[in-house]
C-alpha cells in the first residue's frame, strides 16, 4: 500500500518541476532570438543611424510581414509533425490570379479580390490536406509535388505575361502603402493573423490537439483526437494564409508575374525552425516563428544598410538555421538531463 502511495506522489511534483523547466527553456529560446535581433540591429544602427528611422523600420516590417504570414500557417502544419513546402507556389498562384482578376474586371471591390486570392489558397491547401490526410502520404513528398504542380499551373496561366500596377485599382495599391497611426496596414493584418493563430493554439481545444498530434500521432489517435481531420485543417489554414499573403503581395509590389514567391518556402521553413518550432512536431509557438521571420528579414535589411554584398544573405540564413537547430538540440539534451535529475531527487 505504502509503495503505491509513494509512486503516486512524486509524479505530480515531478510534473510541476518539469513544467517549470520546460517553460524556462522555452523562454530562453525566444529570448535568444530577441538577443540575436539586438545583436544585428544595434551595430547596424550605430554604423548607420538612419536604419532605425521610422521609414526604414516600416520597410523592414513590410518586407518581413509576408514571410511572417506564411510562417504562421507553416507553424500550424509543422506542430503536427508535417511540413508544407508548397506555400511559395500557392502564394505565386494566388498573387497572379488575384492580380489578373483585378486587371480583367476593373470594377472588382478590393475585399472581393482579396477574398478571391484567399479562396485560391484555400483550394490549394485543401488539395494538400486531402492528399496527406486521406492518401496517407508523407506531407514532405506531397507538398514537394504540389510545389511543382501549383507553380506549373501558375506559369501555364500567365503565359509569360505580367500584371502591372497600371492595371490594378488604386484602392488596392493604397492598401499596400496606407498606414494607421504610422503602422502599415499590411503589417497590421499580419499582426491580427498572428494574434488569432496564437490564441487558437494556446487556448482552443483543437489548437492544443495539434500539439498532441505532433508529439505522438499514435497516442493522439488512441486518445480520440480526429488526427486526419486536424491535419487536413492545418493544411487548409496554411493554404488560406498563403492565399492571403499572395493577395497582399499584389497590393505591396503592384507588379506580378508567374515567378512571385519562388523559393519562398525555404525562407519560411527557416523562419519557423529558427523561431523554435521543432521540425519533428509537438512544440513551438506562433510568436517564436514570427520572431524568426523578423530576424531573417532584419538580417537582409542590415546587409543592405551595411553595404555587404547581398550574396552573403543566403549563407547567413543557412548558418542561422543550423545554429538554431543545434542550440535547440543542446537545450533539449540539457532539459532531458535536468528532468532525469529532478526525477532522481524526487525518488530520494
Amino acid at each position, binding site marked *: 500500500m505504502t509503495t503505491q502511495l509513494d509512486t503516486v506522489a512524486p509524479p505530480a511534483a515531478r510534473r510541476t518541476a518539469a513544467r517549470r523547466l520546460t517553460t524556462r527553456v522555452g523562454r530562453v529560446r525566444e529570448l535568444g532570438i530577441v538577443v540575436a535581433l539586438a545583436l544585428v540591429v544595434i551595430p547596424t544602427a550605430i554604423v548607420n543611424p538612419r536604419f532605425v528611422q521610422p521609414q526604414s523600420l516600416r520597410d523592414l516590417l513590410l518586407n518581413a510581414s509576408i514571410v511572417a504570414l506564411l510562417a504562421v500557417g507553416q507553424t500550424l502544419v509543422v506542430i503536427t509533425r508535417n511540413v508544407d513546402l508548397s506555400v511559395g507556389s500557392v502564394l505565386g498562384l494566388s498573387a497572379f490570379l488575384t492580380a489578373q482578376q483585378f486587371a480583367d474586371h476593373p470594377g472588382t471591390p478590393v475585399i472581393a479580390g482579396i477574398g478571391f486570392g484567399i479562396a485560391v489558397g484555400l483550394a490549394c491547401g485543401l488539395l494538400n490536406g486531402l492528399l496527406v490526410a486521406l492518401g496517407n502520404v*508523407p506531407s514532405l*513528398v506531397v507538398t514537394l509535388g504540389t510545389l511543382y504542380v501549383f507553380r506549373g499551373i501558375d506559369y*501555364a496561366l500567365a503565359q509569360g505575361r505580367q500584371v502591372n500596377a497600371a492595371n490594378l485599382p488604386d484602392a488596392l495599391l493604397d492598401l499596400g502603402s496606407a498606414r494607421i497611426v504610422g503602422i502599415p496596414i499590411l503589417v497590421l493584418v499580419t499582426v491580427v493573423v498572428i494574434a488569432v493563430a496564437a490564441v487558437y493554439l494556446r487556448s482552443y481545444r483543437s489548437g492544443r490537439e495539434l500539439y498532441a498530434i505532433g508529439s505522438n500521432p499514435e497516442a493522439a489517435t488512441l486518445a480520440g483526437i480526429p488526427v486526419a481531420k486536424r491535419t487536413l485543417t492545418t493544411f487548409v489554414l496554411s493554404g488560406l494564409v498563403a492565399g492571403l499573403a499572395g493577395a497582399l503581395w499584389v497590393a505591396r509590389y503592384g507588379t506580378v508575374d508567374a515567378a512571385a514567391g519562388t523559393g519562398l518556402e525555404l525562407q519560411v521553413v527557416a523562419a519557423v525552425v529558427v523561431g523554435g518550432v521543432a521540425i519533428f512536431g509537438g512544440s513551438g509557438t506562433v510568436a517564436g516563428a514570427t520572431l524568426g521571420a523578423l530576424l531573417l528579414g532584419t538580417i537582409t535589411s542590415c546587409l543592405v544598410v551595411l553595404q555587404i554584398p547581398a550574396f552573403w544573405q543566403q549563407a547567413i540564413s543557412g548558418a542561422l538555421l543550423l545554429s538554431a537547430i543545434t542550440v535547440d538540440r543542446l537545450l533539449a539534451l540539457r532539459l532531458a538531463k535536468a528532468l532525469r535529475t529532478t526525477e532522481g531527487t524526487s525518488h530520494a
Partner: protein
Amino acid sequence: MRNLLRWETALVFLLIVVALTGQVSTDGSFLSGGNLFYLGLDIGEIALIALPLTLVIVAGEIDLSVASVLGLSSALIGWLWNAGWSLETILPTVIVVGALCGAVNGLLVTRLGLPSLAVTIGTLALYRGLALVVLGDTAVADFPSSYTEFGTTPLPGTNIPYPILLAAVLAVLFGIALHASSFGRSVYAIGANEEGARFSGIRVKRIKLILFVLAGAVAAIAGIVYTFRFSSARADNGVGLELAVVAAVLLGGVSIFGGKGSLFGVLAGVLLLGGLRNLLILQDTSTEVLTIVTGLLLLVSVLAPSITRRVGTLRKAHT
C-alpha cells in the same frame, strides 16, 4: 519485396510506353541516336546524384543540399580557375570540398542527432550562399575545350555522352554496394528499423556519415559535369535540382520512410522522368507543362503504393 518488383515492372512498362509513343509521334526521331545523346546529357547530373541519394533515402534520411553542393562545386571551379589553378588540381579539390560538405551534413545528423530534413534545408541555403560569396553573379567560361568537350561530345564512335558513362560506372559500384554487400544490407536494416539495426551491431552513425559524404562527393562530381556541359561556372548552376532528383528517386519506388527501394528502380525512374521531359520538349510542349508533369509523377508515385496498400487491406478484409 513483391510489391516493389511490381512497381519496377510498372516503371519498365511505362518506359516502353513512353518510348513507343515517342517513336510513333515523332516519326522515329525520339529513339534516334542524336536525340538519345541529348536525352543522356539532359539526365546526366540527375542520374549521378540520384545514386548516392537513393542510399541516403533507403537509410531513412534525406539530403536536400545536393544541388547546392553542385552549385558550390561549380562556383569553386570558376574561382580557382580564375586564381590560376590547373584543372588537374581543381577537380580533385572540388570533389574533396563536396565530400566535406557531405561530412558536415552527416556529422550534424549523426553526432548531434538532428533531423536531416532541417539540417539539409539549412545547408541548402548555406552552401548555395557560399557559392554566391565565392563567385558572386559572374560566370567563368574560358575553360579549355579539351575539358568542355567531355560535356558536349559523345564517346568516339557511339552516341553515349561521357556523363552517362560516368553515371553507369558509378551505378554499378553503388549497385554492388547496396544490393550485393553487407554494407548495403546494413543500409536497408537502418532504414527499416534504426534501433533494431543498432542492437544487432550495425554501426548506424558511421554508415550514415559515409552515405552523406558520398552524396556530397558525387554532387560535386555532378557540379563538374554541369560546369563543363554548359562551359560555364556559375554560382546559381543547378538551382532547384534537388527537387528533380528527389522526385526521380521516389518515382523509382524508394520509400521516403526508408528501408525499401532498389537502384534499378531509381535508374528507371530517372529515365522515365528524363524521357517524358524530352518527349514533351520534342512536341514543343511548354516548360510549364513539364513542371506540372514532374509534380504529378511525384504525387502518383507516392499515392500509388498507398492506394494499392489500401485496396490490399480491403481485399483481405473481404476474404
